């Protein structure tokens, strides 16, 4: 076995779980790379650009400010590892990234907190919103505004967006996601508690209000997305400025604007921990 990996491939969940013993998660033992290789299937994605990107992230950010690496890395990971949603929904690719290509990054970004020195297993292999790399990739995919990764930087600059908002089903409607981020970037919503309160309020109201009817989205153009994937060979993804995302259509601005005042109102009426209780919430 060579330690240099040419391609990112697939490592099944059950195999990944077997390798993630307590000793490995506590870094008392290394991952058995030869066995990981035997359990993996090859894939088409070039490993080297992703590996370089992760090395660069660890160089740019001190361990104390590692959470700040998320906002830098998310757009670049999405633009470097170009996948369809269909491909990205397959957890095996994320297992392979974490266990084979870059376990060091997982240990660096998500060290255990004393008194438990172990890394949470889900950071290697777990739900899309927990796994080290899939959470960033999906955050970029779900929060970008067409080719513009700007909103992704806002989203990933706030750990509560990544930990809470990312897993809410309402944000699959792009204007809803953009409107939430709009409140964050204008400063109407600042702290983690406020983000959580806003997200819960939007989510709860979303069970009786159809945001999709109030703010219709445009269809995302799957063919343009394909073109963008195929274009990867022709571009160098820049590290010091935002890369260009897929030109599959921006979120209609009037749709975002239709939701912003509604969300401001929901937020004003929402209970925020640490904020004095206001009048009762509208249903």
């Amino acid at each position, binding site marked *: 076995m060579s330690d240099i990996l040419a391609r990112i491939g697939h490592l099944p969940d059950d195999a990944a779980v077997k390798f993630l013993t307590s000793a490995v998660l506590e870094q008392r033992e290394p991952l058995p790379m030869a066995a990981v290789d035997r359990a993996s299937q090859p894939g088409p994605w070039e490993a080297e650009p992703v590996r370089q990107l992760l090395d660069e992230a660890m160089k740019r950010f001190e361990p104390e400010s590692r959470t700040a690496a998320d906002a830098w890395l998310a757009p670049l990971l999405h633009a470097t590892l170009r996948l369809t949603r269909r491909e990205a929904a397959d957890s095996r690719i994320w297992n392979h990234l974490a266990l084979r290509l870059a376990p060091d990054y997982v240990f660096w970004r998500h060290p255990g907190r004393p008194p438990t020195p172990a890394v949470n297993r889900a950071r290697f292999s777990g739900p899309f919103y927990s796994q080290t790399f899939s959470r960033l990739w999906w955050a970029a995919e779900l929060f970008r505004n067409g080719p513009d990764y700007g909103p992704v930087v806002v989203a990933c600059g706030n750990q509560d967006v990544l930990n809470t908002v990312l897993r809410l089903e309402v944000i*699959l409607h792009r204007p809803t996601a953009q409107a939430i981020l709009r409140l964050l970037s204008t400063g109407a919503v600042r702290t983690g508690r406020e983000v959580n309160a806003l997200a819960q309020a939007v989510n709860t109201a979303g069970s009786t209000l159809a945001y999709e*009817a109030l703010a219709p989205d445009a269809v995302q153009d799957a*063919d343009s997305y394909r073109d963008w994937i195929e274009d990867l060979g022709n571009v160098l993804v820049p590290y010091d400025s935002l890369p260009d995302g897929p030109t599959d259509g921006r979120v209609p601005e009037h749709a975002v604007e239709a939701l912003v005042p509604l969300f401001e109102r929901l937020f004003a009426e929402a209970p925020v921990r640490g904020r004095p209780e206001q009048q009762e919430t509208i249903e």
Partner: protein
Amino acid sequence: MKRLLPYQTVVGDLSLEVREARLDDIALPYEMISTAQRVVALHRIERDEWRSARLSVRVRAPEQELQQGPWTGMECLATLSERRTNTRTATRLRWEGPGEWSGEVELQRDHHLERAELLGQLIATVGDVPGRVIATTEASWTVDLQSRTPTRREEIRTRWVDFGDEDHPQLHPFKNDPWTVEAVGQEPVLYLNSGFEGLKALLASGRAIDRPARDALAAQIATDVWTVLFNAATYQEDGDTPEWPGGWRESVLRRMLPDLFPTHSPDDALAEVVSRHRTGDGADLQTRILHAAGKQARRPRNLGNFMRTLRRTGQEEE
């Protein structure tokens, strides 16, 4: 499920039907669409390289009720979603006449992996509030990208076995029981005891005179199945937030939680169940589970499907 909401919703049923499916603009053979099971089987297609599917859908609502209700500015949406690929799209349907809408829903293959769920929703202004959901289709359609025949995967695997038989030592402790459920692994299995006198004869009977007894028995078996599946699905590792377990466990939870805690959102209902398990506050929970399992078991459609499963299994292994 009808929830209690602070505004008037439609009482009658909203129904959705897929009338045609076209793949990259070629019409699909009719057997790829199962109206009875509400499934479109796209994987059955012999072409590997298709990119998109277009489904012609029609939604129907109780016409009279719509005319008499307080709703204005009504519109109808078809939503197509798959949680695994984080994809959800809404298509506005055309008004065709009183109580009827239709349109084309586009499914991009790159955006889906296993199964997409197709739902109809009626939206209206109620009071001064626009955008209210006033009706949702009771039964959703499944667009299946992975199975080869159009069947819903929620059916439980059923096996007739003599519980006293040497080949099944794990069933020996239950050899005097008519049935048992194994709820571990990828797929739960219902074992029916062929050594239990009269059970098979009754369940496989097609005679009209046996029907009341057969249905009652099937409902009882189904109640047990749902209860066991629910309890098995709620075991969770400790964590801050309860997680949806995926697979059959998740579909069991999603079906039963609304009957357990009708006023909660699915996420809140799940959190409630997990927390009650943890704190040992389970007595009231068991009562609720029994109620929800009974409801699942008695729903005419579920019971009908379940009976069909039992009878088919009986025939296959004879």
